[in-house]
């Protein structure tokens, strides 16, 4: 299993992410793409701001990809996470996983995004017309 894990302040490129995970041994690729939604709990969102503790975030993402490849026969796994200011419709995260058979690609991709959201030190601030809030910070 090979992996490509990056944190970037530039727009993420979907096509090149998918090109990277493809290989002649792959039969299926599952890709998850997060996008900035225009509202949260019914309230209009103007933009998001992402911040990462980069070295630790990279280390945690490497652990997650390692766990996924221990659980499922994955060929290649990619995580690209954006930081900085993102407008509605932009892409905070791309996760792409290739495998010989699709079940492993689906399972691993979903495991990676679910676990990333629980353990990787990246934070998102939602900016509304009348204020801003760090997501999940308070009960």
């Amino acid at each position: 299993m090979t992996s490509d894990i990056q944190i970037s302040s530039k727009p993420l490129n979907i096509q090149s992410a998918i090109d990277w995970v493809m290989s002649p041994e792959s039969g299926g690729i599952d890709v998850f793409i997060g996008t900035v939604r225009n509202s949260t709990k019914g309230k209009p969102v103007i933009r998001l701001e992402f911040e990462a503790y980069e070295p630790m975030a990279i280390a945690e993402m490497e652990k997650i990809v390692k766990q996924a490849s221990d659980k499922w026969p994955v060929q290649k796994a990619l995580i690209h996470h954006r930081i900085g200011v993102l407008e509605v419709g932009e892409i905070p995260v791309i996760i792409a996983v290739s495998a010989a058979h699709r079940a492993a690609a689906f399972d691993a991709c979903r495991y990676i995004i679910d676990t990333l959201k629980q353990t990787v030190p990246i934070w998102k601030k939602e900016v509304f017309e009348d204020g801003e809030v760090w997501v999940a910070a308070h009960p």
Partner: protein
Amino acid sequence: MKIKILAFGVAKDILGGTSVNLELINDATVYNLQYLLEQQYPRLKQLSSYMVAVNNEYALPGDSLHERDEIAIIPPVSGG
């Protein structure tokens, strides 16, 4: 010993910057650090939860801290 604490997300707002310096007893634990921080920055107790990371790994309350460790406050993450 003198240690430097990195702060991210909402913890940056609470601590008033991206890092703060603290004086701790030698061999202080993560728990000791949290106690001191919560004394100085009571708003930390209003978070859903927060973790301490030492040298880029999540740390447990009983783990010891050392002078050159990279220590960070990790409020609830929300990436993805």
